[in-house]
């Protein structure tokens, strides 16, 4: 596997996923509020350097598949008062996702 080509995508649009409930120290682009939550892959965005490495001037390779994942507001905030169909879409790197 050539590092520059990145890691192959593990999920497809429509797959159910869970975000890892992990709390490592460092520059992490997975917001706190979404960790441990369950959603559905909206699309694969492509492969991008891992920001957790890039932030420290390391190459960030191999590139990680990046997805847009759709969550129901009520899944994230149980007390959400708007339309139950309201959603939040978040960009999440593959190494933060696991099959659900």
């Amino acid at each position: 596997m050539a590092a520059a080509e990145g890691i192959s995508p593990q999920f497809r649009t429509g797959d159910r996923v869970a975000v890892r409930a992990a709390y490592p120290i460092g520059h992490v682009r997975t917001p706190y509020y979404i960790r441990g939550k369950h959603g559905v892959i909206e699309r694969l965005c492509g492969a991008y350097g891992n920001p957790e490495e890039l932030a420290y001037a390391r190459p960030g390779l191999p590139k990680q598949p990046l997805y847009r994942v759709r969550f129901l507001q009520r899944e994230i905030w149980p007390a959400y008062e708007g339309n139950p169909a309201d959603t939040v879409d978040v960009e999440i790197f593959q190494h933060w996702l696991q099959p659900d």
Partner: protein
Amino acid sequence: MPHDHDHPHDHDHRHGHDQPHRHPARPDQDDTITQWRAMEIAVRELLIDKGILSAEEVRRQVEEMDNRTPLQGARVVARAWTDPEYKKLLLSDGNAACEALGMEGGPYKLVVVENTEQVHNVIVCTLCSCYPRWLLGLPPDWYKSRNYRSRAINEPRDVLREFGTAVPDQVTVRVHDSTADMRYLVLPKRPAGTEGWAEEKLAALVTRDSMIGVAFAQNP
């Protein structure tokens, strides 16, 4: 003429016009050297000293940044409203759609989300202030505020109401958190009563806020 002092304006001026009316001096806005500012200046001066950048290049880049305005985004939206083929391209490949109008494609992948009768989209960057600057210029201060960044994500309907934007209950509100390498543009709904309008006239209805999703396009 408005002035800066904070005494009430219904006072009488008996103290008078025979003596100078002293207003407290307004503090300069540019005299605070924060840690980050000091670091920026130090790095910039080093880059210039080492010949990696010139002061002129830095100035030109700042000028270029300041010259970008939401007019670019408005052109894209107005074209999508009038040309179904272009709209298809915009929704599938935002960067190519920018280039198709002779504009810069942009340094990030552009995701365009369409407002419809069923869905209203709102953009936020909860982690910082990611924003499609090549289409909209610099982000407004409120977009970078902790208030907007924390509330748009979990009470978007309240935030929209505070912006004067009433999204009906039955319409789905879809918030997009710009957390990584995508940048987002909302394609607002074309206002009623604009049938047959030319692109340039339509573009004037497309405001910055309507492309962030906190407002609708203006009505004619």
